[in-house]
């Protein structure tokens, strides 16, 4: 039986990662992720975790070291945020396109400029075309649980892709919550030892990733897209398997909250979802039929489930903690619109808030619901709502 412990999101992340028994960890400190690296280093240096810990000189090398270890057959882990993710972009893209599974925690943070160290999801959103599976967590329990699920999803033979476990920098990474920590035996019963392929093996010599002509490249890309599609089913399966053992289900690709009879729906990502649920309760008390859909996965994008969940509703708004330059809206709004093929049957708009650590309050969420309620009978796109305090 697991035990109940109060811990931060970063502690939940490294505790979950450690339960997965990684062969090798390579990471470089960056705010707000640093305590993940510190926590794992502490466990290894105190003999509580049997992993190789490689002290790298940059995030570019962190991703490169884990790439080498994974190519040599290891289960590997790293963590980063914002500028660190940007620096590791080159081996990051290659990790997914090599089709080698691994897990990386991403304590999401705003991208500079303006100079910032605070929360935001621009880092994760900016790499959503880099071929990784990206999941977003709301609570610290979810962060820990998703570490176990992430390895299982990544290593599934139908998937074979790296997974980002994203959670909001500071709001989740530094927030303390009580959560249940599975025992090592329970974790082992859920996640089997890694049986990955050793790609660089003198016993079976082969060239890993030689220069590849376009025709073959096309086949690889098509396979990668098919694996992303297959991952949707695997994600749901793993959620059910996890629920059967631990009694906690997160809904797989999306979570729906009071959507069944809703007229107007908030679509949220990550930590803001809890605030959104409070705002929905608040609106319900005022007689507004509000509901919420939490996007739990950004890649693969849960287009089908999202469209089904929105079917028959009058209006939706997507709250983004990042922007899409060139579209004058948030990126998840853009993708939600694309997923809902008949978007113009709904009233809909993008809401942008919480950039660079700015507060994304219950009041902001209420204002989104109020606007939805006001425009719900006017189908089509409405102006982007900036959730600012002035």
């Amino acid at each position, binding site marked *: 039986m697991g035990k109940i412990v109060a811990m931060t999101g970063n502690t939940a992340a490294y505790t979950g990662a450690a339960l997965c028994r990684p062969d090798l960890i390579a990471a470089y400190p960056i705010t707000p992720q640093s305590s993940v690296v510190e926590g794992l280093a502490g466990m290894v240096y105190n003999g509580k975790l049997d992993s190789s810990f490689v002290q790298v000189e940059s995030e570019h*090398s962190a991703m490169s070291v884990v790439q080498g270890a994974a190519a040599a057959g290891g289960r590997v882990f790293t963590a980063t945020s914002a500028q660190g993710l940007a620096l590791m972009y080159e081996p990051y893209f290659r990790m997914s396109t090599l089709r080698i599974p691994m897990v990386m925690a991403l304590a999401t943070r705003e991208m500079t400029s303006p100079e910032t160290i605070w929360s935001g999801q621009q880092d994760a959103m900016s790499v959503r075309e880099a071929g990784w599976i990206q999941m977003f967590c709301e609570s610290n329990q979810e962060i820990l649980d998703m570490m176990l699920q992430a390895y299982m999803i990544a290593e599934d033979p139908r998937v074979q892709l790296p997974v980002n476990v994203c959670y909001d920098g500071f709001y989740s990474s530094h927030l303390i919550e009580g959560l249940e920590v599975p025992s090592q035996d329970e974790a082992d019963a859920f996640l089997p030892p890694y049986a990955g392929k050793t790609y660089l093996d003198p016993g079976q010599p082969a*060239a890993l990733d030689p220069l590849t002509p376009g025709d073959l490249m096309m086949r690889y890309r098509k396979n990668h897209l098919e694996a992303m599609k297959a991952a949707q089913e695997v994600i749901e399966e793993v959620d059910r398997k996890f629920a059967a053992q631990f009694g906690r289900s997160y809904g797989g690709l999306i979570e729906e909250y009071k959507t069944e009879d809703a007229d107007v729906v908030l679509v949220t990502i990550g930590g803001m979802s809890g605030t959104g649920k409070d705002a929905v309760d608040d609106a319900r008390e005022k007689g507004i039929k509000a509901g919420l859909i939490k996007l739990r996965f950004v890649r693969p994008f849960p287009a089908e489930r999202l469209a089904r969940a929105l079917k028959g509703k009058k209006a939706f708004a997507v709250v983004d903690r990042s922007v899409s330059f060139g579209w004058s809206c948030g990126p998840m709004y853009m993708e939600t619109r694309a997923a809902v093929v008949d978007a113009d049957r709904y009233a809909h708009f993008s809401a942008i808030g919480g950039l660079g650590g700015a507060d994304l309050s219950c009041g902001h969420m209420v204002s989104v619901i109020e606007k939805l309620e006001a425009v719900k009978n006017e189908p089509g796109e409405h102006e982007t709502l900036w959730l600012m305090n002035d």
Partner: protein
Amino acid sequence: MSYIDVLKETQNVMTPGSSACQGCGGELILRRVMQIAGNNSVFAVPPGCMAGAGVDGWNFSNGCTAPIHITLLDNTASFMSGVSEMYQRKGRPDVNIVAIAGDGATADCGFQSLSGAAERGTKMLYVCYDNEGYMNTGYQRSSTTSLGSSTSTTPAGAAINGKEQQQKYLPLIMAMHNIEYCATASPSNMADLVAKIQKGLEASKRGFAYLHVFSPCPTGWKFAPDQSIQVARKAVAANLCPIWECEKGVFKLTPNRKPIPIAEFVRGIGKFKKLTEEEIASIQALVDARYALLEKLAAE
């Protein structure tokens, strides 16, 4: 065993059929490193002449008989750190972990990851074949390009006469990382090169080993392909490529107290055709000072 017997009794790991230029120093160095390391190795070769020449396989007609990966231009040492850690963890320290990279991937954009891996004492052998530039893409300058060299990004022009800076001397920088083994070599001194590859592989079982090998490039430097070994020999004779090694901080210099002048080395090499007297004097001063420093480091 003499180096000739060593080469006779080891197999080529790289198959025939690579598309390297005639007289390529890089290919000669790579073949010797690979055959001495043998098939119980994992090799990494970043983009550059050797990857471009298809040492890891191209068109199903040539390849390598040992596992090999084309790393990124800037992550060869860190990628191989991960491979090495996993092999130590698996209880397979017998597997040689070997990187073979050009000077661009080593001294320029790959330098950070190289320095990191060296500082950590990663168990691997890193061999740099230094042909003083980005040859695979048409000879752009690198930080190891000699002063006054006419390259495609530092042409000997009417306003600026070739590369304006002296070369960065990487081997001493690597020696200052307190690594197990650091050495320079030249394909013109094959017995020395073979011995150093063997020593480097041995040292890679204890920690980081680095070998910096002078690599003549007829195509980029513009000299006849049959002159490659001669150019390498003159580079050693002129002290542009002094031969030394450093084992755990102890320097050993192969003496060359009567060097030929730099003016004699540069003669006949196209990239140096427009060197001025001042530039020749400046390179001469650099190599003299470098040799004097190495003599001091190697003094008992």
